């Protein structure tokens, strides 16, 4: 089972490798990937350097080119694929039929991984993409229960990758327009959810307010710490009840599912967070490396260690973690 870690820059990538990542995924410095944030991601030159470093250490480089090509700039997506393939990417993480087609035609030797943004949640969808583009891997959206993951794993012709830890998308990825509803920009169209340029925090007599494009997402009491206004994690009212209507600020943590994921033959566990610091990546990689090694050595004896949970809890949104949709009670 592969441990796949995120990196938003070279220091994070090196720190992932030093702490046990088998492979690292990155994005280029433009809107061709779903973490199109200022100050993040790789230029052509840095990408080549990343590939050299990873290959020296016998690790793999995955490059996410997982937004949907605009009709006015298809060249941008094609050139991102050129840059990645020509600078040593071992795998391209793709969501759009246009980019899958281009990659399969021009760089058949570079693995194609179906991005979570393609939203393939069932065997028929996997068949569709595999029939056309010969995939090496499918990244599953975070909407399937563990039971459903197992069912799919039994029948899929393509190895599966699942999200193991990090920010929790609670909607079927690639088909969520909540962000463009409020701001005009979505992961699909602009490569970011709840983009930072629309965010505003303001201290008011009623408390600290967080807004996204002027819409009030949450208001915090003096003793609460104010979070980033990701719109699906705001506090809203339904019938005069104020609560986290869609989801609490919390992170996904599937450490306890590792033996089941291993038994289900899941090829890779993915850590979310290309936007995170090298220190964060190091900490998460370290815990997951230990957990995977323990689990693979003796899955029967495997038990989640308290220090692991503590370390990951401290790195989590709102210091809370959840099993998300993998666990039916969450649904």
């Amino acid at each position, binding site marked *: 089972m592969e441990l796949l870690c995120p990196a938003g820059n070279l220091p994070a990538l090196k720190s992932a490798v030093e702490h046990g990542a088998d492979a690292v995924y990155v994005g280029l410095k433009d809107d061709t990937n779903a973490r199109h944030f200022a100050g993040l991601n790789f230029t052509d030159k840095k990408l080549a350097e990343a590939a050299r470093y990873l290959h020296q250490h016998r690790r793999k480089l995955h490059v996410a080119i997982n937004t949907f090509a605009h009709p006015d700039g298809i060249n941008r997506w094609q050139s991102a694929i050129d840059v990645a393939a020509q600078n040593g990417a071992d795998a391209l993480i793709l969501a759009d039929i246009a980019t899958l087609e281009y990659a399969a035609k021009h760089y058949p030797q570079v693995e194609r991984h179906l991005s979570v943004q393609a939203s393939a949640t069932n065997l028929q969808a996997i068949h569709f993409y595999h029939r056309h583009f010969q995939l090496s891997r499918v990244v599953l959206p975070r909407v399937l229960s563990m039971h459903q993951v197992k069912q799919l794993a039994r029948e899929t012709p393509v190895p599966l990758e699942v999200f193991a830890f990090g920010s929790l998308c609670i909607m079927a990825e690639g088909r969520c327009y909540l962000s*463009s509803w*409020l701001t005009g920009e979505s992961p699909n169209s602009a490569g970011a959810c709840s983009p930072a340029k629309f965010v505003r925090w303001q201290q008011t007599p009623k408390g600290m307010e967080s807004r996204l494009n002027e819409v009030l997402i949450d208001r915090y009491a003096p003793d609460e710490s104010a979070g980033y206004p990701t719109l699906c994690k705001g506090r809203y009212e339904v019938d005069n009840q104020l609560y986290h209507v869609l989801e609490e600020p919390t992170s996904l943590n599937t450490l306890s599912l590792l033996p089941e994921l291993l038994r289900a033959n899941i090829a890779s566990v993915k850590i979310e967070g290309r936007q995170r610091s090298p220190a964060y990546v190091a900490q998460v990689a370290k815990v997951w490396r230990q957990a995977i090694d323990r689990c693979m050595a003796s899955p029967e004896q495997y038990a989640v260690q308290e220090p692991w949970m503590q370390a990951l809890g401290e790195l989590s949104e709102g210091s809370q973690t959840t099993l998300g949709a993998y666990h039916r009670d969450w649904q």
Partner: protein
Amino acid sequence: MKYAIGPVLWYWPTATLETFYQRAAESSAEIIYLGEAVCSKRRATSFHQWMDIARMLALQGKQVVLSTLALLQSPSEVKELRRYVENGEFLLEANDIGTVNMAAERKLPFVAGPTLNVYNAQTLQLLLKEGMTRWCIPVEMSRDWLIQLLQQCDAAGVREQFEVEVLGYGHLPLALSARCFTARAENRGKDDCQTCCINYPTGRRVLSQEGQQVFVLNGIQTMSGYCYNLGNDLSGMHNWIDIVRLSPQGESTLAEVDRFRANEGGQAPLMMARGSDCNGYWRRLAGMALEGGR
């Protein structure tokens, strides 16, 4: 321009649906989509009942399209879907790429629904080869984006091979989750949802702490807080859009078809109100924005 009534995205009892489709049969809409497109737990209306309604509408001269689930997760859902794909009488709307696969393997034509990720001409060309005959654009797509895309289809010589449809009226389907938000609002999980969305025929309103209606909950689906309304944008659609879809909000939506038709040239503008209507997506703005209203 033709008009379509989209599938009822809410969970309505069978009797309500039957009455609605009786009225729809008498409406001026040329095309009617029907079937459960949101949640597989909504089983009050059976496959055979949907087929009966479909046949009634076809007899009244409507073109009928069977719409299908947008989020397919379990093998049992795929199995049930097969009955719709293989119905043998009516055109199918595929709202998941898995459904496209099932139609293509059987060489059946299909409508590419608005929840498919279609953002460029390359994608459309592949779907055309798979059997697509009509494309309903994603809800977040703007007029500018669409025009560029269709010009590329023109250049590729495929523009005439399919119809283009836009969802132009109703609360917009924005997101789907494994979680049921309607059940959550009643403090229960999905496994114990008691199919409670049947009690909310137009969903549950979600307000910000300032009273702004941000979203509407519809089971596992999150919808726009405002009603999308492109009734005043029709005159700019003629070269690009063949069909305007109205998503049922109640029986009043059927009369909306006539108001839209009357304003195709801009001669009978519709009234729109800030805080309840919007037209942002089409105009390349935030979806919730409203231009030209008051």
